């Protein structure tokens, strides 16, 4: 085994000087980076909160809500008659829904219903390949769901520095929390007080959600089927739905993508005994004042929707059963 002196001998004195200089120069940067990483990881956030909640309470949950920001905004477990938890999050794709389910495999002792939105974009996008791909790191770091070996997806400091500085300032200096959900996981950010321009947000969201191609379609359909199969094995019912949206959003959608999404969800639901599907995209009970923006409900709309969900759960219970 070569001793330390021998290794040093291989370096020339110039090289030693260079390594020494570089190490001394880099050390403060490395120390500061490490401190930043530790400080950032200590800041409570939605992912950390939901992961901790599921670690401790998954055995007590009867209704589990998964999905993206649509489900995050519109389903408030406080109005659902069963013990519920909203485990959805911003841009959470079907694959991550399934990964969360599998992560707590064996702990869903009381789980009876899984609610998953199948929205206009659900079958056409993935989190890793979308504009919000940076969120993957939250699943790696806080949920312990390791989906990516990419260093960007495994460290907090790979997020941009201004955002990180803001988070550190808000939490450590201004004592502001990063958690933007209720104790049952429902989003608190879609308040009617901050209502957005429905015309503008409708156009923008429709454009953002319209797929350029269908390269992820088959993959997402497969994930949907996997969720159903998984639930079937646990004797759990699946409720798929398409979220309500305001007309300014609906009118700007690509009819083919929308039709294909609805047809696929309907077809899949019809093929499984434990699955139902409801298309609520243009549900007339939701009025202009129920929307935060064109594709998210505010707290008023959310209350309506959550109460309605109780009825949908009852319909699912009565209409379908696996023998």
């Amino acid at each position: 085994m070569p001793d330390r002196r021998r290794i040093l001998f291989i370096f020339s004195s110039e090289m030693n000087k260079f390594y020494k200089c570089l190490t001394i120069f880099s050390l403060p940067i490395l120390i500061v980076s490490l401190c930043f990483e530790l400080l950032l990881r200590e800041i409570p956030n939605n992912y950390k909160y939901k992961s901790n909640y599921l670690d401790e309470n998954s055995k007590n949950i009867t209704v589990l809500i998964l999905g993206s920001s649509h489900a995050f905004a519109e389903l408030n477990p406080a109005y659902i008659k069963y013990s519920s938890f909203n485990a959805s999050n911003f841009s959470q794709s079907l694959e991550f829904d399934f990964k969360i389910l599998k992560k707590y495999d064996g702990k869903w002792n009381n789980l009876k219903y899984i609610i998953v939105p199948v929205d206009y974009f659900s079958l056409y996008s993935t989190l890793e390949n979308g504009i919000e791909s940076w969120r993957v790191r939250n699943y790696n770091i806080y949920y312990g769901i390791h989906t990516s070996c990419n260093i960007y997806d495994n460290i907090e400091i790979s997020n941009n520095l201004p955002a990180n500085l803001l988070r550190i300032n808000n939490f450590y200096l201004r004592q502001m929390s990063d958690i933007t959900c209720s104790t049952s996981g429902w989003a608190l950010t879609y308040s009617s007080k901050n209502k957005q321009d429905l015309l503008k947000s409708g156009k923008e969201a429709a454009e953002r959600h319209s797929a350029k191609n269908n390269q992820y379609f088959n993959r997402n359909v497969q994930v949907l089927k996997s969720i159903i199969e998984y639930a079937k094995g646990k004797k759990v019912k699946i409720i798929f739905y398409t979220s309500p949206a305001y007309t300014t959003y609906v009118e700007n959608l690509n009819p083919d993508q929308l039709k294909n999404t609805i047809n696929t969800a309907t077809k899949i639901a019809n093929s499984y005994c434990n699955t139902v599907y409801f298309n609520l995209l243009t549900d007339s009970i939701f009025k202009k004042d129920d929307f935060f923006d064109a594709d998210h409900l505010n707290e008023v709309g959310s209350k309506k929707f959550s109460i309605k969900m109780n009825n949908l759960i009852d319909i699912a219970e009565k209409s379908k059963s696996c023998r």
Partner: protein
Amino acid sequence: MLFNSIDFFIFLPVVFILYWLVANKNLIFQNLLLLAASYFFYACWDWRFVFLLIFSTCLDFYSGIKISKASNITSKRFWFWLSVSVNLGFLCLFKYYNFFASSFIQFIAHFGLRIDPFTINVILPVGISFYTFHGLSYIIDIYKGAIKPERNFVNYSVFVSFFPLLIAGPIERATHLLPQLKTKRNFDYNKSIDGCRQILWGLFKKIVIADQCALYCNHIFRDSANYSGSSHVLAAVLFAIQIYCDFSGYTDIAIGIAKLFGIELLRNFAFPYFSRDIAEFWRRWHISLSSWFKDYLYIPLGGSKGGTLQKTRNIFIVFIASALWHGANWTFIAWGLLNAIYIMPSIFLKTNRNNLEIVAKGKILPTFKETLAMVVTFGLIVFSWIFFRAESIGAAFKFISKILSFSLFSIPAVVPKGIIIFIPILFMVEWAGREHSHALECFGNKGPRLIRLAVYYLLIFVIFYYAGPSQNFIYFQF
């Protein structure tokens, strides 16, 4: 794997340590390691194209030997033209086929004819224009008897695929790089420290300036109709700064990395925006490509000798070839033609070699005349970049017509704060370092150590502050 990615900042120290620790004792090991690292680096982008790179390397290596060994001119010509045509063939296939096919369809459509030719839908192998030109210069030099062929395949392969220059140059010459690869490199502290400094400046230019300018320019160029004439002028100026900082930033990083491995690469930029005329600009912008075209196209065509017609022809051929090298689009051709027109007066008036030295050499500030000349030259270059950046010729003319509208006198769209702060800093630092090979070179040993360290840390902080998801370098597409 981009130079401005975390992946590369893991890759580089690993190769560096292996190079100086394990392979340090032996030239063969040094070159083998560089070759393996280079192929790995290239494979990270798309492993399939490594085979194309290897094929091109093998062909040129073998052809070089065959040309030098050829007993008669026919055999010599055969191997020369085989290598040139295969290299250019690949380049044309990947880069130009669709452009020429679609242009041909459009052309014959004017005569009422319609054809449906075979079009290929392939991605352009990154760096193909650069490594093809490496190979071509090597073969041409051997054919002309300027150099002897390299007999060691590993040395030659490293010459073609050395990872810092593989993707976007500088376009090296066998006469410059091969002798360095045939000599064992010894670690040089000062060279390595200077390399680090150059890398730092390159990253600053790319991440802090180029990427921030891109945010503004992309908005205006994409959504031209919704912005005022003044915003268009600002976008054109910012694009000129963006493309300079993007490409020269890349080059600084590449040259800095090569220095860490004890290798000197050709200089590619010499503060081109401090040029007093177009001819000087072209001696300072993308030097390795300009000199390539000068040596292998312009001079063989006759250069600036001969009659007016011949001179005009040579200039236009070189600029059109240079434009086509950048890509298959009429916008590049328009950009090339515009630059050819710009440079013509100085060729005919024989003023093209008036400004060989850097502006205001040994002085702190330029004279009024020099300042005016620099501003006019910069203005002309900014105008030509509009064609380079636009999606189509039509879009370029729309962009120009918007500039010439009454909204030119309105307040432009808000520029990100960072740009306002850092562009003046960029120009000040570059001005201060203009007599050196790179802007921070002179800074190396000047002033108190503490201040220098503070500046380096400040640069690193700013780089981290503006670093978002790694943005591609513009010249990767060429």
